[in-house]
């Protein structure tokens, strides 16, 4: 089936929700697509059972108001459970394929969000080691506490709501391990105080953690994980680390879950498939390049393609909301004055950059690896295999390493490992951008592909 809409928004997280709302309010017919069954994205992930949802979320009121408004808006058609597997430009229009047909538009807003950034270490493939976001999504989306003894680790402000959420819902968090120093925020205090709402949110989490007697440790990192005889996580080795992330001493903790997050990686695959310009952001992640009005840069200048939220740079839900609103209005050619929204965006961006300075991720993690450490989880490619492709087969760029070792060739198509492989090879920016190109954004069956009469 071919479905045409004036404006199509992909992604029902904060950015996509606001983009849809603002574009519809400006008079456009909007389609809002998401692969998930419910709106909300990562931030407002919910079970759909009201009593659960109110309790598990900071700021869920704002989200449910927004989602209710969208569901009630006659100009917005919502397509849940709709995964776009490919995107291309045909005859001056964007064609977005889902399994039974295609959406067609000349005004597209991409808001496909981000996923946790992971660093490899020995044992990170043991069941029980997961991302911080995974623990969060189990709790928010299914009401399940990830384990019986949970360590939350990594770096960045996101660890606080994860640990606080788990402990306030009966989970036993046996430690919160942060790579940054306890007072790493001090040099940035002035700029942090510009955002009192976020600071008070953070203090709220700290209070919860204190009440639950969760021990917080700083300048430490999980550097290896160990399995029991069933192959499940039994303990982790934690290291004291210096500013470069090099190990100074170690000790161990028993736990059945280690929920580890090192910030986020934007999912720009759809932007890449459409040939939009991408760039490497200050934090080293590949992002979609946008102008003042969130418009992306395409070789097809007749197209109006916008990007909003985490795919233009990691910055949290407030920034996603502001960017979504601007993209929605711009896509609708609205003449609304964007000054106030742009001011909010500027402030949120500045705050995001400040946080990135407070929680830097140093390359010393490479010293945690052993030759046997898995780098590509899908294809089980070890650090040693990548090193030997590098030294013996001239595989000094990400593409060669991929084709010669199969790292990044598996089911996730390099989403988890490509950044780390680029870091291991000290790849230049151009290589990092090429490294995330995947024409098939999400797998479909050959039977679905083979259907007749589809674009």
């Amino acid at each position, binding site marked *: 089936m071919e479905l045409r809409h004036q404006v199509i928004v992909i992604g029902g997280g904060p950015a996509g929700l606001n983009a849809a709302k603002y574009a519809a309010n400006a008079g456009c017919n909007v389609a809002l697509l998401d692969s998930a069954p419910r709106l909300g994205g990562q931030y407002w992930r919910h079970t759909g059972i009201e009593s659960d949802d109110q309790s598990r979320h900071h700021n869920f009121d704002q989200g449910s108001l927004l989602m209710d408004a969208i569901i009630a808006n006659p100009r917005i058609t919502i397509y849940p459970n709709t995964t776009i597997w490919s995107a291309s430009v045909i005859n001056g229009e964007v064609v977005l394929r889902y399994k039974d047909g295609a959406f067609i538009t000349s005004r597209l807003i991409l808001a496909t969000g981000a996923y946790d950034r992971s660093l490899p270490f020995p044992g990170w493939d043991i*069941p029980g080691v997961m991302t911080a976001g995974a623990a969060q*999504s*189990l709790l928010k989306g299914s009401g*399940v506490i990830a384990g019986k003894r949970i360590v939350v680790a990594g770096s960045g402000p996101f660890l606080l709501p994860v640990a606080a959420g788990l402990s306030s819902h009966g989970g036993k968090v046996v430690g919160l391990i942060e790579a940054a120093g306890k007072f790493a925020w001090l040099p940035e205090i002035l700029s942090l105080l510009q955002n009192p709402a976020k600071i008070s949110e953070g203090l709220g989490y700290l209070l919860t953690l204190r009440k639950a007697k969760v021990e917080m440790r700083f300048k430490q990192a999980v550097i290896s994980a160990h399995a029991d005889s069933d192959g*499940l996580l039994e303990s982790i080795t934690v290291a004291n680390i210096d500013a470069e992330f090099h190990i100074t001493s170690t000790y161990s903790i028993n736990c059945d879950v280690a929920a580890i997050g090192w910030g986020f990686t934007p999912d720009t695959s759809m932007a890449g498939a459409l040939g939009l310009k991408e760039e490497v952001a200050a934090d080293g992640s590949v992002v979609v390049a946008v102008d003042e009005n969130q418009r992306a840069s395409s070789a097809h200048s007749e197209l109006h393609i916008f990007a909003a939220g985490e795919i233009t740079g990691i910055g949290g839900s407030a920034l996603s909301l502001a960017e979504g609103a601007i993209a929605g209005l711009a896509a609708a050619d609205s003449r609304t004055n964007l000054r106030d929204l742009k001011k909010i965006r500027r402030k949120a961006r500045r705050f995001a950059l400040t946080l990135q300075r407070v929680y830097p991720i140093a390359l010393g993690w490479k010293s945690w690896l052993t030759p046997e450490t898995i780098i590509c*989880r899908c294809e089980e490619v070890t650090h040693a295999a990548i090193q030997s492709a590098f030294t013996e087969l001239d595989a000094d760029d990400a593409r060669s390493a991929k084709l010669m070792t199969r790292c990044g060739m598996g089911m*996730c198509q390099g989403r*988890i490992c490509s950044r780390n492989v680029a870091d291991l090879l000290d790849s230049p920016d151009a290589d990092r951008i090429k490294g995330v190109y995947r024409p098939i954004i999400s797998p479909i069956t050959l039977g679905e592909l083979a259907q007749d009469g589809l674009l």
Partner: protein
Amino acid sequence: MITFTFNGVELTAREGQSVAAALIAHNERITRLTRAAGKPRGIFCGIGVCFDCLIIIDGQPNQRSCITEVKAGMVVAVQDGA
């Protein structure tokens, strides 16, 4: 409450939960064994990105247990290799 089976054993779940979450609620953490080394794997990213939580659902392999909602009567099994 609904019921589904995992490796032939009947388990309960709450409607709307993901398959992975329903399994973890019963302390079942292994969704698959890897193709090359036969190592156990389970949920990792939790949001459908990493493909580590692959599992067999109603006879179909390679299903992501973290983003598939559990349904009454589902037949779920560990995926051995690909």
